[in-house]
């Protein structure tokens, strides 16, 4: 039994997946927002306050993970009146649901720089799977990721009453993400 601790240690060593590299998001050069067709015109807003924890290794997608937390109340379209309505109960309901969260469940490599992240999005208290295709270019210690996920807002109850129907505000919301990250 004197080898028992070594055995346990070895078990942990092999059981734990290898760590994927951790990336630090460069907030000044990153953007998260959405675009939705509103009265047949694009309506675009960005989130001013969000953070992402990203471990990613193209050579080890199984160990890669992303966890993004978004302050829904930080959305900004440039029109404070409209934003106030969107933040209200009829939209995000930021008083009751101040954060939205995306947690990846898997990554797949498509071709070249193209990847697809699968994950769960929790928005307004509802969790649903979301697919996020993205392109990734890594140059040394810096990575640039651009992706867009199609989120059906009706599945999350974002938009009730006057906004429950797909008109004037479409159901299909494009969530756009553009991240520049660096590795230590």
């Amino acid at each position, binding site marked *: 039994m004197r080898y028992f601790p070594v055995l346990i240690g070895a078990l942990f060593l092999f059981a734990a997946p290898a760590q994927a590299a951790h990336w630090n998001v460069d907030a000044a050069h990153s953007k998260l927002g959405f675009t939705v067709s509103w009265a047949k015109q694009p309506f675009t807003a960005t989130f001013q306050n969000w953070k992402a924890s990203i471990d990613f290794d193209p050579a080890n997608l199984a160990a890669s993970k992303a966890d993004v937390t978004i302050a829904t109340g930080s959305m900004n379209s440039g029109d404070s009146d409209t934003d106030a309505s969107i933040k209200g*109960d009829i939209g995000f309901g930021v008083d009751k649901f101040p954060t939205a969260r995306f947690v990846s469940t898997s990554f797949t490599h498509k071709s070249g720089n193209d990847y697809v992240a699968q994950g769960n999005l929790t928005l307004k208290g509802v969790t649903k799977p979301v697919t996020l295709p993205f392109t990734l270019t890594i140059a040394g210690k810096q990575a640039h990721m651009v992706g867009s996920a199609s989120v059906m807002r009706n599945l999350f109850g974002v938009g009730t*009453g006057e906004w429950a129907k797909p008109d*004037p505000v479409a159901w299909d919301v494009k969530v756009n993400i553009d991240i520049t990250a660096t590795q230590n």
Partner: protein
Amino acid sequence: MAIAANTRTRYGNVAMTLHWLIAALVLTNLYLGLSFDSYPKGDPSLFQVVQIHKSIGLSVLVLSLARLIWRLVNPVPPLPAGMSPLLKFAAHATHYLLYFLIIAIPLSGWAMVSASRLSIPTHYFGLFDWPNIGFIANMPLDQKHGLHEPLEAIHTYLAWSAIVLVVLHVAAALYHQFFRRDDVLRRMFPGTRVADKT
């Protein structure tokens, strides 16, 4: 007793119905309009109240246009002979301004809704969708949305003018009834008797 058309001494049924109906709708809408600020933005019940406000306002517009036409083809009873020229002028001015407001306030509201960024359709009492004013709704976005705030300001100022004028109008009616003791208020009241002094 009372008949549809106005007579020399009193208002007819049509004029009285339109007057009191529009009065009730205008007072309701002034109250609803003032209540908007007490709702948090994005509160679903605010959107419902706004829909009712829009439906009432558009009803006021239609009824006021009908009333204006009715007035043009059907002269109103003259003011009592004993009123001074200044008082007569004040009475006529208040009435014309009230006519202007019951048409201009719903029109400005309809225009601001047509320019709104929220683009929420007007459900007329849930019966059908009332269209936006085409030439405003079809403007380029920047131009259209730029119009919304000035139109909202105009709508609000006109509504406050209406509150002042309604107070003046009611005070004048009470002044006629209790101080001048003439038939001015009675002739707009259904079921009252008005002596023919002419």
